[in-house]
């Protein structure tokens, strides 16, 4: 594909990092994607199921346009894109420069195993004598010191965990590929100084560390230590804090002055942890809490050693940096006193551990049994808010994700347990604030998941067993005890480990909650241009939101790259002129990698040749030892050049990895890479162990695989790649903040945008909201956006204009605009962004309309602004949440009403501290940082009363001059409360403003609530099902301003994928129609999940848009007549393969 000048660094290869990287790569920028972990995918590599589908579906993030630029297979296994370079086990050590020209230093941990040589055969595993808890299974299983970080990753080279490894060397001897290189020699050069006034400590540390091969000296006091430092050079000093005379902190200070490169780890008692943390600010690397044992000390020292000595450093030049470091889970052991006994009671697990229990690749292979004793799990409790909404844990925020994942896990448990599993969720507020979440939660309740409102403070094992017994206070005040087979702690999120250091390195502040601070109302932009935050790095977000913020971050990065000259010129890949082999009968060269003798022995070769050359299209079968090496690869290229076959089949390992290499081979040999294929021979060979493995090779299972591939390859023709021309300009419908932001985001990257607004002014809802809950001025944001839109040379604003009709598909839509005066014009555009917004839903309950004191939130705000309400005269105000929402037919949470209520309540308490403000709510949806304002509102004296859906508040109006009375049942007191209110404010939520016929004109659909139906709520959250049609802002779903702005950036970035191309290229694997066989029955049109097919009435033909077709084959499956054909997977090819499989 076309590459642009310009490169970005994406830090963090979790779901958000992958999204950002793909978004940048898809529009042609180079990306360096790094992760400090040894695998991509972040925590999602461990999660098998996502709601609301309860499946995975991560692969839906893969490129849809120009798919051939990357591999198309399970994204949890690996990511391969020609514009993305992935560096694992890597972190940033320094950043210098400015936007457009950053120099970033990266440090990659050694793995001790050469990934080029390791074939993943696993011979090293049985000989390794060390077993440690397996992080992939969240510690539920065990692994060796040489291990695969994620078992399903591709390619999957083994790695050595230096902290666990004893350097015994058994794996070195066992490795058939010579891939492992251990060296203990360098440990002798690593000199450690141990400083402690306790001789016992000095002696034990010395012996522990010397056992590991380090060079250790000791000192009994700080002055002694300084003396030693003066005499010889040390790499690491371990020092006690509390020592007579000069203490450890002072020692640190002086030692760092004398030897700035010295790494210092402090040892501290429980009491002086604070001091230790302080000490880290003046240069201590880390600290250890006494008493400690070799199991904690030694790995830490090894890590320091590894970091300091064995890591590989390199520098990259990038134009922009996306920080997508994600979050970490809260460790329940950090809760004061560990009240849930996590780590002590085996039947208390974290939610992540539970995900592993239900995972097919987990410790119990997905069976619902307790990992520690194998007993079937029949009764499970989920405890919410562990480490969230807990000021004591330093979490005055809601982690935003736990409620929904707990519901999902409860559903999974019920499903896995065939209905015999009892699942109970103990919660404070169920925060199901995403678009489909409330219905999902209701479904769970209908299917038998129990929801108990109440926080569990602690649990104890049932007498005589290890089964956890919960003690909790029911709503009626009774204290109850209940024993469960398993207790799942719904652990909250924390800023990612290392996030603070990273922020410090790039000189960015943290916000009060410890996350990266971003610019007001942006959440992706930071104080430093060119450095942006993606995913959940700057906040608490679920998958779908993380993906949105990742795309928005990619958009910011794209704008920086573009603005600093990034796309001024595109590098055209030198077009290779491939040999024209279309008229030749197929001639297949089969090249088999022998991989030493591990795939086949000398004796078997004859048999293989006979088997393969039975098919006359096989020109020759050649054998190459280690085709993956440079020599092997050259031998293959030479063979192709010499023999000039028109198809090449390679039998080797890791076929996924070959995508990029085949392209190189194609350039070298002038044979089109689509005419080459790779078959995995090593995998099946390894899967069959021992003697069986010989049989697999000699008895023909491996040759059979090759023969099948030959059958397929001989039917492969070079497809006529059709490319659809693109009208490289965008239409944005809706001139609110989302529409304006999207327009600017596209126009800033150089493409013309027509912005259509039905009203006479731009601005939408921002014209009345005023400011956000956290006090940011929206008027300023609005004014700036309007000004920028107004003077942007690439943006044409059409006010007082509506879209009257539209047709076409991605690349060339035609929309007819009609102005207020009736003048019509038709625009051609390649993409459309629907940003039609929404408004406050109408109120129809609680006596609205019968008394001037009963108003909606917007009405309240307006009345205050216009002076119809005087805050000083409002003695009592009742605010009712969820008016007409979160119940059918509008069974969704509007997200903004609870924060708006807090905003209004706090403003009222500010203006009139004596006022009584009572908020009647069902679940207060202050997700994320908004929780802090919930706390503030309580502090300010706002009274919150939860009501139940089946016992709604009653509003009585006695007369126009009498106050309105509101009666509600207080759950804790168990009796009604009556309030005479001067104002009753109804939170009615959001009603979308996306006309169904407008969406339909572009081929998009609405969901049951009238918002745009996303292609996929998690993985493609701003796309419609129809390629080229995107949505943002309230048209997509209820969101606050900051989130809406992010959806706009994300939608713009998705749109840029299309606009960046003059023509939309089709992939090789696309569907075509054999019109002579087609009966026009239309089944394929209904079956196509990408809406790539349509019946052209005039031509009387079914047509496929090759750019939209993703080659999934659904059409081929439903067509009874073979009229729907996948290029490259035709029926004769499949029959040929079957034939060979049976031969």
């Amino acid at each position: 594909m076309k590459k642009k000048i310009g490169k970005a660094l994406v830090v963090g290869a979790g779901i958000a990092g992958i999204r950002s990287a793909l978004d940048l790569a898809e529009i042609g920028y180079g990306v360096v994607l790094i992760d400090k972990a040894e695998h991509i995918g972040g925590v999602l590599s461990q999660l098998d199921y996502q709601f609301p589908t309860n499946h995975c579906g991560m692969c839906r993030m893969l490129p849809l346009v120009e798919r051939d630029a990357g591999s198309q297979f399970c994204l949890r296994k690996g990511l391969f894109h020609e514009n993305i370079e992935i560096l694992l086990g890597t972190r940033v050590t320094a950043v210098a420069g400015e936007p457009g020209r950053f120099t970033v230093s990266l440090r990659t941990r050694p793995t001790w195993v050469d990934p080029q040589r390791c074939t993943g055969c696993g011979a090293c595993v049985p000989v390794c004598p060390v077993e440690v808890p397996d992080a992939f299974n969240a510690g539920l299983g065990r692994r060796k010191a040489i291990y695969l970080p994620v078992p399903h990753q591709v390619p999957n080279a083994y790695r050595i965990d230096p902290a666990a490894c004893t350097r015994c060397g058994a794996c070195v001897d066992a490795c058939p590929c010579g891939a492992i290189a251990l060296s203990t020699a360098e440990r002798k050069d690593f000199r450690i100084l141990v400083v402690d006034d306790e001789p016992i400590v000095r002696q034990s540390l010395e012996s522990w560390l010397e056992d590991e091969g380090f060079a250790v000296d000791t000192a009994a006091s700080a002055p002694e230590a300084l003396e030693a430092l003066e005499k010889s050079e040390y790499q690491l000093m371990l020092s006690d804090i509390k020592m007579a005379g000069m203490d450890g902190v002072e020692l640190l200070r002086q030692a760092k002055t004398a030897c700035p490169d010295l790494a210092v780890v402090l040892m501290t008692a429980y009491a002086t942890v604070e001091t230790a943390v302080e000490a880290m600010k003046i240069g201590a690397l880390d600290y250890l809490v006494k008493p400690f044992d070799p199991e904690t000390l030694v790995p830490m020292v090894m890590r320091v050693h590894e970091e300091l000595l064995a890591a590989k450093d390199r520098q990259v030049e990038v134009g922009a940096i996306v920080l997508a470091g994600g979050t970490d889970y809260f460790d329940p052991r950090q809760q004061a006193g560990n009240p849930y006994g996590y780590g002590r009671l085996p039947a208390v697990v974290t939610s992540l551990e539970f995900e592993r229990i239900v995972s097919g690749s987990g410790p119990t292979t997905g069976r619902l049994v307790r990992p520690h004793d194998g007993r079937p799990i029949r009764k499970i409790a989920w405890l919410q808010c562990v480490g969230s909404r807990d000021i004591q844990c330093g979490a005055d925020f809601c982690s935003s994700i736990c409620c929904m994942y707990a519901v999902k896990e409860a559903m999974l448990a019920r499903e896995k347990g065939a209905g015999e599993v009892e699942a109970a969720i103990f919660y404070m507020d169920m925060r199901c604030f995403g678009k489909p979440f409330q219905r999902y939660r209701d479904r769970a309740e209908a299917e038998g998941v129990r929801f108990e409102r109440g926080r569990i403070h602690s649990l104890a094992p049932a007498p005589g067993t290890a089964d956890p017994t919960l003690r909790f206070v029911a709503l009626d005040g009774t204290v109850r005890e209940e024993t469960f087979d398993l207790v799942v702690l719904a652990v909250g999120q924390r800023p990612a480990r290392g996030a603070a250091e990273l922020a410090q390195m790039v000189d960015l502040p943290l916000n009060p909650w410890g996350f990266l601070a971003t610019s007001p109302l942006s959440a992706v932009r930071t104080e430093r241009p060119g450095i942006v935050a993606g995913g959940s790095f700057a906040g608490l977000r679920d998958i779908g939101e993380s993906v949105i913020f990742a795309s928005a971050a990619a958009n910011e990065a794209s704008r920086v790259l573009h603005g600093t000259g990034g796309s001024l010129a595109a590098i055209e890949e030198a077009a290779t002129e491939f040999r024209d082999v279309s008229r030749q009968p197929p001639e297949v060269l089969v090249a088999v990698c022998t991989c030493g003798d591990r795939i086949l022995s000398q004796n078997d070769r004859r048999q293989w040749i006979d088997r393969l050359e039975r098919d006359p299209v096989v020109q020759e079968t050649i054998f190459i030892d280690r085709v993956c090496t440079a020599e092997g690869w050259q031998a293959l290229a030479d063979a192709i050049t010499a023999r000039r076959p028109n198809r090449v089949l390679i039998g080797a390992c890791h076929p996924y990895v070959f995508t990029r290499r085949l392209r190189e081979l194609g350039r070298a040999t002038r044979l089109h890479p689509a005419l080459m294929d790779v078959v995995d021979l090593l995998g099946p060979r390894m899967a069959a162990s021992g003697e069986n493995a010989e049989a697999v090779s000699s008895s023909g299972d491996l040759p059979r695989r090759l023969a099948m591939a030959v059958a397929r390859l001989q039917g492969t023709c070079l497809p006529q790649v059709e490319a659809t021309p693109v009208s490289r300009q965008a239409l944005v419908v809706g001139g609110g903040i989302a529409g304006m932001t999207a327009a600017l985001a596209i126009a800033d990257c150089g493409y013309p945008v027509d912005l259509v607004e039905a009203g006479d002014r731009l601005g939408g809802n921002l014209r009345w909201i005023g400011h956000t809950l956290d006090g940011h001025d929206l008027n300023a944001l609005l004014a700036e956006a309007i000004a920028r839109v107004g003077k942007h040379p690439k943006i044409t604003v059409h006010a007082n204009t509506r879209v009257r009709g539209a047709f076409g598909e991605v690349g060339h839509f035609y929309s007819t605009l009609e102005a207020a005066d009736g003048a019509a014009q038709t625009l051609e555009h390649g993409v459309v962004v629907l940003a039609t917004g929404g408004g406050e839903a109408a109120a129809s309950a609680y006596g609205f309309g019968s008394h001037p004191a009963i108003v909606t939130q917007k009405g309240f705000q307006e009345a205050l602004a216009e002076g119809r309400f005087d805050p000083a005269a409002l003695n009592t105000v009742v605010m009712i949440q969820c008016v007409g929402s979160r119940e059918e037919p509008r069974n969704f949470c509007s997200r903004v009403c609870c924060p708006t209520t807090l905003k209004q309540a706090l403003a009222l308490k500010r203006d009139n501290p004596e006022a009584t403000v009572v908020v009647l709510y069902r679940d207060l949806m202050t997700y994320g940082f908004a929780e802090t304002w919930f706390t503030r509102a309580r502090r300010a004296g706002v009274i919150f009363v939860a009501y139940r859906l089946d016992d709604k508040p009653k509003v009585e109006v006695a007369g126009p001059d009498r106050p309105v009375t509101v009666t509600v049942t207080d759950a804790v007191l168990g009796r009604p409360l009556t309030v005479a209110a001067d104002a009753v404010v109804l939170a009615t939520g959001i009603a979308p403003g996306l006309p169904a016929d407008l969406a339909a004109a572009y081929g998009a659909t609405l969901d049951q609530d009238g918002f745009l139906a996303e292609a996929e709520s998690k993985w493609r959250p701003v796309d419609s099902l129809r390629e080229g049609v995107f949505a943002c802002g309230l048209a997509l779903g209820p969101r606050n301003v900051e989130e809406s702005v992010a959806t706009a950036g994300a939608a713009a970035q998705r749109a840029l994928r299309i606009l960046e191309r003059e023509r939309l290229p089709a992939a090789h694997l696309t569907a075509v129609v054999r019109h002579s066989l087609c009966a026009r029955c239309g089944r394929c049109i209904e079956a196509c999940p990408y809406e790539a097919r349509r019946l052209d009435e005039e031509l009387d033909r079914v047509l496929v848009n090759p750019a939209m077709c993703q080659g999934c084959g659904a059409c081929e499956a439903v067509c009874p007549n073979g009229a729907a054909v996948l290029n490259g997977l035709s029926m004769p090819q499949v029959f040929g393969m079957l034939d060979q499989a049976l031969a």
Partner: protein
Amino acid sequence: MKYLYYPGCSLEGTAREYDISTRAFMTAMGADLAEIEGWTCCGASAAEAVSELLTLVLPARNLALAEGMAPAGRDILVPCSACYLNLRRVEEKARVSHALKERINEALAVEDLVYHGRTRTRHLLDVVSRDLGAAGIARRVVRPLSGIRVAPYYGCQCLRPYTVFDDPEAPRSMEPLIAAAGADLHAWTMGGRCCGASHMNTKMEVGLKLVGAILEAARGADVVVTVCPMCQMNLDAYQRQVARQTGVDSTMTILYLPQLLGLAIGLSPEDLRLDLNLALTGAFLEKLERTATAA
């Protein structure tokens, strides 16, 4: 090691053996205790129930006296958890509120005292576990208490609300000390539970229930070790009432921590006034005898 010493009222009366054993043990370990001259009651749990200001002024008076003895500030060793909390609370509150300190000093002025906020109140367990340290004690052990199973009881107020030296939910600071003394640990989860405190005086039925649960959980141990006179009294003195209520014999030796550790470093039962403890069981004494013989 020098400490100012605040014994508190109980240590003059019901908990005399705590006072005596603390002094004996600390001295034997090489520490120097200087009793605050003219100290008065810290207010115990009673002041809180009567007057907010009194809860601050009564302890502050003692802190001011301490400052008079060591103007540069020195650690105040307090064996009683209630006293410790009361004194500590004043330090913590005065540290963050200048206004409060002013108010306290206004009251103290009638006694010509000034509290500057330079003291550091430390609980006996804090000093023993961190200053003396298990290793330091182990070095001096001459009579390992092998075969004696010890249940460490921490009570509440040395752990909570101020988290200073131990985990407030699952305290463990006594464990290395017990190990250093050569004794065995009775592992339980009751170490930080409430003994009922002054309920024993005002709402005995409530107090007995709490004490009963602790004694029940201690079954299997030879001795429960405490670090607070109130806890000691509740566990030590009401065993008969508990037995009457539960119908289960709950006789148990209850020792103060310095008593136990003192035995291990060679102090005699007489030095430590074991005769003042109310419920020394025969079984415990027998085991103790055996360690003596072994030594």
